[in-house]
């Protein structure tokens, strides 16, 4: 896999989490989730696009029947403010009423988006809503969203790979790398 070629728009500084490291941790998480949700109706809800690969690998590491669905959050511009308006641009297709929902995130930074989604899902009368994130950055976390399952704690800010992008590129790297911010193109 090319590490930041001319078209990538970023330059990799170092590999943070190797392929096998990620996969080993996902197996552990999968076993734990299998135990915790034994006999319960489980729906994994992935937040697109970042959770794509994590969702795919984690769901296959969980040894029990489950449903998969995805949500996408988007920002639409607002002419009167610097910031836009957050909207769910792709909503769930399955009915989660009475079911146990596990929200799958690639990374939790401030926790704002996760908090928004958790509130939104809880309002739909799910039996429970918990969060599973591959990466958590406690230094950046502003909101104490309870995270039931987390893969790795990180401190680095600029990351790419395994679903995370820089300008929509780099998601398909099988590992997670720290990029050189100055090397962004």
């Amino acid at each position, binding site marked *: 896999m090319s590490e930041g070629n001319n078209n990538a728009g970023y330059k990799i500084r170092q590999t943070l989490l190797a392929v096998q490291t990620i996969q080993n941790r996902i197996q552990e998480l999968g076993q734990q989730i299998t135990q915790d949700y034994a006999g319960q109706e489980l729906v994994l809800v992935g*937040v697109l696009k970042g959770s794509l690969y994590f969702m795919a690998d984690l769901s296959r590491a969980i040894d029990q029947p489950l449903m998969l669905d995805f949500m996408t959050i988007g*920002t639409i*511009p607002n002419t009167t403010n610097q910031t*836009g308006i957050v909207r769910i641009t792709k909503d769930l297709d399955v009915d989660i009423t009475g079911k146990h929902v596990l929200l799958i995130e690639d990374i939790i930074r401030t926790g704002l988006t996760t*908090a928004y989604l958790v509130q939104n899902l809880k309002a739909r009368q799910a039996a429970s809503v918990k969060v599973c994130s591959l990466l958590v950055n406690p230094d950046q976390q502003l909101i104490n969203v309870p995270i039931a399952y987390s893969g790795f704690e990180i401190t680095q800010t600029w990351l790419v790979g395994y679903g995370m992008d820089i300008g929509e590129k780099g998601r398909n790297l099988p590992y997670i790398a720290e990029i050189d911010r100055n090397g962004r193109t």
Partner: protein
Amino acid sequence: MPILTISRQMGSLGDEIAHEMARRLGWDLLDHTQLTSRFFAEGITERERHSLSESARFFLNVAPDGQTYIDHLERGLNQLAEEKSLILLGFGSQVIFADHDEAVHVRITAPADIRLERVKKQFNATDENASQMLDQADRRHRRFVATLFGVDSADESLYHLVLNTGFLSVTEAAETLTALLNIRKIRQEQPEQSKKPVQAANGKIHFKNKSEAEFARILDMHQIEWKYEPRTFPVEWDAEGNVTLAFSPDFYLVQFDTYLELTTMNQRYVTEKNKKLRRVRELYPGTHIKIVYKRDFQTLIERFSHIGTAGQP
């Protein structure tokens, strides 16, 4: 020159009355902090200055000029009192000027339950926290005056007048003091037009800067319930138990029981905020409080100003 000394309990409205009297009389108002900074402006280290604000006993040490800190301060204060009319708040000044011909000494008190309610409201504190703050302040007040002057500041025989703001408003207390000063022909009241107008609050939130307003919008669009500066955490007290440093975080996130302080300022201010934040965590265990640094704030703004997927703020 005339002197009005005011000894007060925390939550008794003593500070408010002192300021009201300063406004009416046009006299200089000096409290513990101003006294120490005025009379120890030079020649002492930061550590010594800190000790002067924290410890009564430290005033009994010998200062660089060969006399004790308290002697140095008393001498300077007596000299100042010859030149200016003064309102002295706390510091045992009722003892220093006990025999002064033109001094009036007043003590401001209030019933315990009323003081508790005032402190709860002022600092948005719980019953338990407010009660602890009052106990601590009372102990420190009494210990300070007892250590330096060997008297009990609660002893009513030290005062011309003891005013109970459980029954009296700030205005009534100020009127009473003004009347006493007039009877003793100590002063003439300032003309009415010199009084500053009282500005009424209109209930609207006025953010201190655009960043705060923008951050509030980001919280709104995530449907996160917030309150603006709902609570003040006292973090430092002087030796008399008066609050000398407090921290009012910008936002409180109700569902997440988390306080956030936004900073988009220079590093030296950030350092000061970090210090306050550490003190809040030490003094109020279990309080969730975080600083949103300039870099993080800009990242948030950048992410939410893009069209398309919001990414992961």
